[in-house]
Structures are given as C-alpha cells and as structure tokens.
C-alpha cells in the first residue's frame, strides 16, 4: 500500500508536472519507499496506455465531413445575403418614406380655418293699424284667430375665411 500523503505529488511527478524544487523530495521518498515505487510505475504504465490508445488518428473522412458541413453552411448564409439585397433596398425605401412623412420641415401646411357665420336677424317693423287693433283686443279678452305665419326672407350665407395672417380675413357671401 502506497503512502496516501505522497499520492498527489507522485501522480504529478509521473507526468512531469512538479517544479524541480518540489520534485526532489518526491524522488527522495520514492528511492526509499517500495510501495510508492510500485504506485509510481503502475501510474506511469496506465498513462502510457491511455496516451497510446488515443494516439491513433481519426479517419480523414471525418475531418472532410466537418469541413464540408461548415463550408456549406457559410455558403448558404452568403447566398442568403446575396439574394437579400432586394429586400434590403425595399426596407431602405420604406424607411425613407417614413422619414419624409414624419420630418417636421416637410409637413404640408394646414389649410386656413373656415368659419360660417349667419347675418344678423332682420328687424321686423309692425304697422300702426295693427298695433291699435291689438290694443283694443287686449281689453275684450276675445280669442283672436290665429294669424298665418309670416315666411322669413331667405338669408344670405356668409362664409368667413380666417387665414394665418390676422390682418387678412376673407368674407364670402352667397345667396
């Protein structure tokens, strides 16, 4: 049975992983400990076995297959980029349109505000005879027949156009 205290250092010594200062005491111990010598040689053997087993090369076809897969994928990506120029140009054009529509300096100026105002109501002048008759009828409390409603004359349409300039107001009168 080898010395457990020395196990880690012996394992590192087998692979040449110890600096000279640390390797020297291990070699001194190995020189005087038969069990650790067996442990050391067994470890050396297993390490060489593993290295030997993995020294064999992989078939060349396995490298070629990987290379072909990578290049095919890269080629596919490049083809996509080459074919994608049309969509790219379309996207740029669309973006330009959006910018033109949103840009403040390029907005279409609003039309002048329009207000529609009616003319003042015409003054109705009542004749003198009619006023007298009304006064006499007030005392009799007699129900008078209803007068037919007088039709108002057609009012002209007045359109006032208010512009951005407060000094300029446009009136448009239509019959």
């Amino acid at each position, binding site marked *: 049975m080898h010395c457990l205290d020395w*196990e*880690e*250092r012996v*394992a*590192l010594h*087998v*692979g040449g*992983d110890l600096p000279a200062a640390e390797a020297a005491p291990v070699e001194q111990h190995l020189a005087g400990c038969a069990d650790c010598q067996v*442990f050391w040689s*067994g*470890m050396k*053997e*297993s*390490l060489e*076995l*593993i*290295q030997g*087993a*993995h020294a*064999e*090369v*992989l*078939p060349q076809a*396995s*490298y070629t*297959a*990987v*290379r072909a*897969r*990578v*290049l095919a*994928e*890269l*080629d596919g990506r*490049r083809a996509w980029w080459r074919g994608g120029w049309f969509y790219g140009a379309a996207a740029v054009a669309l973006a330009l349109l959006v910018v033109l529509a949103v840009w403040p300096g390029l907005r279409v100026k609003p039309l002048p505000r329009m207000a529609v105002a009616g003319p003042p109501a015409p003054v109705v002048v009542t004749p003198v005879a009619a006023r007298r008759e009304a006064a006499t009828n007030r005392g009799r409390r007699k129900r008078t027949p209803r007068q037919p409603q007088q039709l108002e004359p057609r009012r002209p349409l007045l359109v006032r156009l208010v512009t951005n300039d407060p000094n300029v107001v446009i009136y448009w009168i239509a019959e």
Partner: protein
Amino acid sequence: MALADLAMAGEAEFPHGQSHLLAAAKAGDLAAFEALMRQYERLVLVTAFRLLGGLPDAQDISQEVFLKMYRNLGKLEEAASLAGWLYRVTANACHDARRRKRPNAPVEFAEGLRAGGADPQQAATEAERRRVLDLSLRMLPEKERAALVLRDLEGLSTEEVARALGSSAATVRSQVSKARVKVREFVERYFRSQ
C-alpha cells in the same frame, strides 16, 4: 503539443503565415478560412472526440466551434492565440453538449478509431483494450477528464489548460493528479481481473 509549438508548426506549414490567413479570412476570403480550418481541424475534432467519446457528437461540436470561429473572426486579435481560443471554445461546447444530453443516454465508445492490425484476433484485443481505456476516461468527473485530456493527451502545459478551462493552475494540478490516480486504479483493476 504545447500551444507555442502548434503555432510554430502552423507557420511552417503555411508559407504565407497564419496571420495572413487570419487577415484574409477576416476580409471575407472563404478559401483562407478553409485553410485555417484545415490547420486546426485535428485540434478541434480530436479534442472533442476525447472529451465526448463519440465521433458523431465530436463532429457536431467541431462544426459548431468553426462556425463560432467564423462569427468571431473580427474579435480574434492574432493567429498565435487562435489555438488557445479554440481549445477553450471546444471545451465549453463539449461541456454544454454533455449537459444537454440525457443522463441515461447509452454510453458510446471510441467507434471512430481505426482498429489496428490485420489479424482479427489482434484487432479484437486491441479494440477491447481501447474500449477499457476509453471507459476509464468516461468514468472520470467532467472537469477531471477535461484536465487530463488537455494535459496528458493534448500535451498542453498546466497554465494553458487552466486558461482553456477557465480555472487556476493549482486547480488543474489537483484535477490532473486525481484523474491519473483514478485511471490507474481502473486500468489496474480491469487488467488484473483478466
């Protein structure tokens, strides 16, 4: 092979230099990127294979790693650091793949390796030996396995392993020593029982 050796080997193999290849790949040269892939495909695929144990999974991881490398070409400063970056990304991708995989998924063995020798008896023995050695790696906790693979099979220094796994050199040394002890016990137990 340490990372510095790997970078120097790459410079020797490619007369125009890895830096030129990297610059050309960054500029969109697909052939240059393919040349870089050829240079590092062994590193990525073999590491993934050793960490995961199955060739199809390792190929998927390799594909993922190289596509990530392509996406990150702009961030890669110099070719000398490419190997370290690839080890790190491969180890992370394998870690993610193991987490994604169902815990009760059947254990794959190193079916991707070539069987050595023409003699069927010898080939069978060799395959069995390889299976046991692969199993000895598989039974290790994930971090110990990654440390052992990068240190003992890939030949990185302790500091390089620490950088690839995002931990400290002291932690890596502890993980490597524990892994070596466990592998020795497993291998000894198996071959003694034969």
